[in-house]
């Protein structure tokens, strides 16, 4: 499962970042931030060829030594980034896809909350729960 899950606003500032608590949080911040370059590259590449009919799932953004970074962009240019341990080979593309879908649904719920101010950090228990479910459980 994931070691870090992040939601990035359209303006590329973090709305939500959570990583496995035992690991270096700062590293994940850097990783996620750096991955945005690839996300932007992919978005601009997709925009040219396919127009509106685009796939939200961006696939593997880039592999680092220890992690694989996957990306997903909503139509409102909110980015989801999931970082997975490289050693975790059991995860297939389809599973990542479904994780993103779940995340997106939950995110939509958060946005539908009339008390949520779009652009604020996400502070939702339900969302937290979904994310926790996707994270690696460490003892």
């Amino acid at each position, binding site marked *: 499962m994931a070691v870090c899950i992040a939601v990035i606003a359209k303006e*590329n*500032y*973090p709305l939500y970042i959570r990583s496995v608590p035992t690991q270096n*949080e*700062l590293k994940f*911040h*850097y990783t996620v*931030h*750096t*991955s*945005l*370059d*690839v996300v*932007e*590259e992919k978005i*601009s590449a997709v925009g040219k060829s396919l127009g509106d009919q685009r796939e939200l799932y961006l696939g593997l953004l880039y592999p680092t030594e220890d992690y694989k970074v996957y990306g997903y962009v909503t139509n409102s240019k909110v980015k989801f980034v999931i970082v997975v341990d490289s050693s975790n080979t059991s995860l297939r593309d389809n599973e990542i896809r479904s994780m993103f879908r779940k995340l997106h649904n939950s995110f939509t719920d958060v946005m539908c909350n009339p008390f949520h101010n779009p652009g604020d950090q996400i502070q939702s228990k339900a969302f937290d729960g979904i994310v926790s479910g996707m994270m690696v459980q460490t003892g």
Partner: protein
Amino acid sequence: MAQCVQSVQEFVQDSFVPMVAVLCSEEAERVTRKNNLNFAELLRPFCRLTSEGHMRDPNNQVQVVKNLRIFVNNVVTSPNRPPTALSHAQSKILNEVVLSCQPQEGVVNNVVTAGDYDLNFSATTPWFETYRENFLQSMPASDHEFLNHYLACLLVVSSTEAVPVEQFLKLSQEQHRIQHSGEYTNPKWFIPNTLKYYVLLHDMSEGDEQRADAVYEDMKQRYGSQGCYLLKMNTRSFSAEGDEQIPDPWSQYLQRNILHTQVRTASTPHFNPNGVSGSLESHPLQLDITSSSGSLHTLGAVKTELKKGARDPESLAGGAGSHGACLTLNDHDHIRQFIQEFTFRGLLPHIEKNIRQLNDQVKTLILKIWEMPPKHFCSCPEYPKTMTSSWYPPEAPELQIRKMADLCFLVQHYELAYSCYHTAKKDFLSDQAMLYAAGALEMAAVSAFLQAGAPRPYPAHYMDTAIQTYRDVCKNMVLAERCVLLNAEILKSQGKYSDAATLLIKMTSEDSDLRSALLLEQAAHCFINMRNPMVRKFAFHMILAGHRFSKAGQRRHALRCYCQAMQVYKERSWSLAEDHINFTIGRQSFTLRQPEKAVIAFRQILTNDSRQTATQQSAFLREYLYVYKVTTFTPDGLSLPQLPLPCIHCSATRVYFGHERRLAEGEKQAATHVSLDQEYDQDSADMWCHLEEQLVAAANRGIVPVNFQPTQCCLNSQTDNQRHPLAVVEEPIIVEVTFRNPLKVSLALSNLSLLWRFTADDAPPSKEKMTNELMTQKDDIVTTEVIQEFQMGPEETKMARLRLLPHRTGQLNVVGVVYNLAASSSGEMATFDVMVVHGKQDLMIQGPRLNQTKEDKMTVRHGHDQRLNFIVTSPMPLMEIFFLQFPTALLCGEIRKAYVEFCNVSSVALCGLRVVSTHPDFFSFGSQATTPLTPVSPTSAENNSAYKTLATPPQSGSAAFEMLVSAEDFSQPSGVIDIPIDGSTLQPGESTQLPLWLRGPDQEGVHEINFLFYYESTGKGNKISHRVLRHTVFICASRSLSVQASACRSCVPPHHSLGDKGGGGTLIFIDVENINMSEAGMREFHIVQVSSSSQHWRLHKCINPAKDKDCKLTSRERAKLCFRATRCKPQKGTPYRINKPYLSALFQYMIISSSTPCGDFFFRGCQTSESQRLDAPSSRTSCSSKSQSCVSTEDRSSDITNIVRKCNELDLNIIVIWKAYVVEDNKQLILEGQLHVALQTIGKEASSLTPREEAQEMVLLKFKSQLPPPVILPSAELSQLVKTSLHYPETYTHPFVQDSLCVVPVTLTLSNCSLAQVDVIIDLRHKGTSPETLEVHSSFTWVGQTQYKLQLKPQEVLCLTLQACFLQAGVYNLNTPRVFAKPAEQGAMCETSQQTASPSLIFINNA
């Protein structure tokens, strides 16, 4: 990858140049040493050939050699095997090189804009280039390639030598020994028979030139003219220095040389044949480098030294003599010529010859190989996988090919080189000689790249394979690195930045931090140079590079990397990363002695709303405090440094002028005034301002001065702060500063005080302003209060109130706060360890944004905020007010007596005491006209009542006690009330007490009642004209009684009434109901007295049918009182008549309702209700009278209504005085109070309770002007113009037998109620409309005149005698006359209501 100074081709070419060794005789060395150089160094600046050379390739084609560079070096021998990694010393040298090469301060950085990022960094990375150059030069020569093997050897002998030829021989033997004895593996030689070039060095200044020439001739004979050279130099004598400035081309090379030579010497200490580095030991740099290269201090020294050297070449070698001091420009040319001669005559032909030889060899070899391939191939599996350099014997054919390839490469014959490399590569690969293969691959790729007009694309995969092989198979990081450097540069030139970046990143490893750092930085530059710049990747790799730099001890580079990365992360709410970078920047800056930068960085961390954990933050804080303490201690003490924590919310600063007051003192309750604890409220501020305006107007005879400004005791962000606030000397100023602790750790502030600047009034303008910044207490000017301890919890917002007490007049500016900051120690933490720093923070208050003019709107401009710039003025009086026995809860209408005390607490007399209130009818100081001014002590009131009483007159209730008073006695022209104090001044320290009557508001609920007291100084000419004191009370009013009164005309004919000729009697009904909802405590109400007050009417005695002498009401009971009222003659000045028709029998006294509390409240109540009434219609007409068309009709009808209204007008006020018995705390209390009812019109009910204001109905907004509905004549009101009554005998006996007609006289009394002339028509004819009425009335008829037309004067009463004629006995209704009345000169007639009134029955009896 950053931009380089060299082009790629140049760079690659220069990476591989022909190497030439130098062997010098000692004498020759001495000659060159004069110039502070050795021979190799002497040649170095001239090693690049400017002219083109030519040579023939094996196919006899002429090949042009352009821009060739050769590398001349001293022979340094070592027996060592070539290492696979750089030696320690070498890497140290590289480190120094990088360290010494720092970006220059003034270099213009280029700005890269990517997306919404603007990055500012230098595009060139000279440190990387220097590193690369040095790295490539320090490559150890290895066996698998020949590129950096020596091709030739210069043998240098001085002409001063006794027998130069012998020396040449010696040197030649020496060279031969080095190359062929097998003692030394280093240096390596390209070809067995190395080219030896004999150089005779002639020192012009000392030697014999002719002798030299002779020796040269001899040499020519011996070695051929192409194998020797006579170099004449040192033309200039050493002493003749200074008169000619000669450029120093050595300086830029020397730095490196020194380092290099050092490496060589360091690695080969045992062999130093020519004493190469002898004099170098004394070089100033060397000591630094070897002794303590890590120390920052010496680093600084090195840096400055280097800078100096770069700028001013002479000064570098100043101590040891400058370079080339004995050389003239001519000598430079000689050297240049020598190099050219050597290269073109000696070296190139030598290479050409060798290529030919090798070519021939190779051709035969290739054939050989092709003849016996099976043998070779079958033996392959036996070879070990990893090849070492010793695998091939030097004469192996594969190596010959390689050698030829290298030679071709060196002389820029890339095409041939490529094919050779290609062939060699194949051979090596088939032999599984991986190191050799990798080398061949690398060079094949490079030569393919360098081929002009390349017939084939650049084989990048060759490079990849080569790198991989070097790194993974051969574990030779040095070669791998070289390969990467070349490949990356080539890829960069082809725009393949992404590949280059990947390549560079892959090359980073744990073994060399410096290399990793440099490569990562280059990778970062690659990312930013991509077509779509990858800013974040750039930043990330910069951070990685910075990290590696710092690990490698390259602090400056690390700092630079972090700073550049910071631009990407800054203020984009990636706070965790931002904090990390800031922290690192802070630390690096600190260690680099850049405390300002460090402080700024740490300050950033602390002021940002970071998401760090508390422990992290406390670490940051401690670090910051430490850095701050160590670095920013300014011994000069001119000004204190700024502290970043805690945050000050400047605009929330509040300023309060005056003492902090005690709100209660025993029984006394002080006026609330203003305090810092109150929230600012715009509405209430407006209200107070309005009240003050009233006061000032009253004090200035009704005119508000132009420069009037409301007194502001408490300034905050919402108040008008455009003017300098006025403070009074010896009166404190309290400044409330809002601190916010953004951290999750608590802070401890101590010795917190305000920082001020003071300019005295009488001070000459030139005199410096006084300030308390420099720690010295200046209590004689301004006493500054110091808060010793001020703790702030995590993320707490806390206010600090700081006091100033000015002692002199002048201008006082508060400029900031000064305090000691420390991290809050948690309990047992030793106090001596706590870091405490002293600093200040400025208080800069920005005014509100201006929005008046166009410029204001276009730009962002802010007004002035003078909140903290006080003007201290001369002493002013100061009054304090206390209230005694002031209630908090009252019944509606309840009268209570309280006392108010005015104290002058200042040393200045005050006068002109006034008060104004939002509820003027709430209180009264009594009126001067009716009250003796002697203050009454609370206990001395008779009957314990607030009222003035008289003993009950004997004939209680029978005769109304009447009194005439004038309303002016009680009411004041405006709401402003002068406070009647003795002598109208209060001397310093004096105090006076006055009684104060209060009356509960008529409406229930909690009322906020505001008083504003006004006073001024007796002295004139103060900057402050007056002072005010506020007081706010909250009164909870609960219901008491509800009094409802109504009036109706009595039907009693006037002559029956008490002889009054007026408009007849009016009956007044008063309904009193106990509507007190409350508690058990309330027992009962007694109506004590009812008084009336009117200008025209008088209330007569009570005509209650019940004859109830004591009106007592328990809860929810209701009582009715009936009075008759009569009109009385108007008197001059229309004073109010006050009389008391009702007195309860229970109380043996009478309340003088015309005197102080009662009358005051009554008249004040009248005023307010009148003003309300005046307000209401005016507002209504203002909206309805828009349409002009119907003005005339409206006018006419309003005339009538006026008349009618007048006629119905009844201006009668009723005062009901009650007592209530309340049990409270087992004590019976008697409360008393009064309620007023104003009867305006007859028939309308009036109530003491003002009807609850109905919510204003929503009026539809109409845009079309609608015609007002046609005016309907108020017939109902008109019908009351004339009052009619019939007077006749109730029974009448008539003998019908005698006389069949019975005529009865009936008097019809008409009384005009109005004040206008009225036309009356009386019609006696039956006009029955319905058959029913016809039937009833048909039995009698009016006789005589049946129609009258009369005119009634105002208030006239007219009797008309009519005659009714009856035919038979019975009961008749005489009420048939129809009376029409209309005001004179009016069209419409109106029937009086007489018809509808009750029937007037007459009994006709038959006698």
